[in-house]
């Protein structure tokens, strides 16, 4: 679905991604994990075409549509839009210039609200919602764009443990029930460890490491993070202690 071929990129003159070679397959749940400044968001911006690589290529299959949920700091909450209005923004490019939303656009918006479990919030103002509700609104907006691949940048930032768990369950549902390919960026491995199926670990001054969830053990984590982490299974789930 997406092939990152010898990708090299950075920002402000400093290289953060160097000759990265990686494939993201259809129906993948792909986690990109690493500390702040490791190049996670840069990689996401490269995948989404928001930034050009210094060298190498991002090769996507023709017609691939992304649904993006970038970090909320990029959104100015002074805007007085309702949840429904924001979700409708996901349809803008599909509706096309000159035209007004038709009944199928409105249906798609309602369906997206339903999937994101925020139908009851449709008439509320975005800037009056909680962090978790805002994140769901942005996911619903991305779903309204009928994407093949959902891309999320630190979606669990600022969320309490309940909000975080509910959001990750929603992503899991989208992946399992709706067969959505998901690319999830996070700096908190312990939060996303049980949700993503494959991981790309980015770390400053180290080679990127790509592993499946089943392959993750204490030795792998030590190699990636340079210190000892205890990994246990609790009720069949991985837990970092």
């Amino acid at each position, binding site marked *: 679905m997406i092939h990152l071929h010898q990708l090299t990129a950075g920002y402000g003159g400093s290289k953060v991604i160097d000759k990265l070679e990686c494939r993201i397959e259809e129906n993948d749940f792909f986690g990109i994990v690493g500390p702040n400044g490791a190049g996670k968001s840069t990689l996401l911006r490269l995948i989404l075409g928001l930034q050009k690589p210094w060298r190498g290529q991002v090769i996507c299959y023709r017609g691939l549509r992304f649904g993006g949920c970038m970090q909320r700091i990029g959104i100015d909450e002074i805007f*007085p839009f309702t949840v429904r209005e924001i979700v409708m923004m996901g349809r803008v490019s599909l*509706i096309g210039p000159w035209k007004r939303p038709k009944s199928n656009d409105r249906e798609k918006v309602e369906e997206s609200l339903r999937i994101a479990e925020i139908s009851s919030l449709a008439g509320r103002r975005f800037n009056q919602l909680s962090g978790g509700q805002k994140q769901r609104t942005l996911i619903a907006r991305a779903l309204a764009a009928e994407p093949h691949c959902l891309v999320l940048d630190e979606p669990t930032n600022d969320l309490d443990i309940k909000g975080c768990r509910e959001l990750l369950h929603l992503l899991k549902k989208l992946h399992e029930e709706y067969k959505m390919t998901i690319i999830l960026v996070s700096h908190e491995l312990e939060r996303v460890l049980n949700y993503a199926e494959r991981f790309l670990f980015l770390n400053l001054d180290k080679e990127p490491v790509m592993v499946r969830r089943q392959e993750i053990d204490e030795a792998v984590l030590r190699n990636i993070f340079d210190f000892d982490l205890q990994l246990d299974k609790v009720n069949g789930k991985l837990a970092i202690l």
Partner: protein
Amino acid sequence: MNTDWSILAEPFVWSGAITALITAVVCAYFGVYVILKRIVFVSVALAEVAGLGVACGMFFGVNHQLAAVSFTFLAAFLFWLYFSTGHALKESLVGYVYCVAAAAAIILLAMNPMARARGVDIVSGNFLYAQRPEIIVLALISAAVITIQLLFAKEFIAVSFDRDFARICGTNSRFWEFILYFSLGLTISASMRLSGLVYVFGSLLIPAWAGLLLGRGTIQIFLIAVCFAAFNTLLGFALALVWDTPPAPTMVVFYGISLLLLTSLKAGVIRLTRAGA
């Protein structure tokens, strides 16, 4: 201060009132974007550049509206370039353009004895000098700009709210942002000679603020901003003539007083509602 209401029947007064009303409505509409996109100082810098265009046009003997549009187009292009690439020094650029344009306009007007004779006042404007051809050009430009805004409202709104998302979905964010900046520049430059900096800036800022204060949804906000601008403009204009005060500053003072009243009223209503709950 006289109270001779018969002056309102004079044809030049109607020309001035129509000019002020067109400027108020278009600027109020754009003002909503200006506040939401936090480009208030971009708009005042564009107004200053338009003023420089007028001063240049008059000094070098070329059509001042054309000169104002050309200058503003260049400034809008520069701002778009800096703002759409997230340049770190964008605020400094706005400040630079503002002060250099203002200084240059002051010098050119001081060196041009015809400017004062023709009623040119870059700061407070002079609606009473409005001529029919100028009003027609202003009306045509305003109609074109508003038509574009209404036809592509969803694109402008989507790009203003979250340009990255719009781009991910296939909308050409940079193109629509450029059109937005250019339309803003065009609106300002078309009205600058007659309206002056104070009135253009006031019309961009205060009515939109009133809309955001009272409106519950997007359409309401735009409608309230436009109605607020139209009401205060007509009232302020009429009273400025009756009281013999400069129209543009008087209308801006009316904007200010109305906004204060609305803010107090809203605060009072909220307090009463809370007390009753």
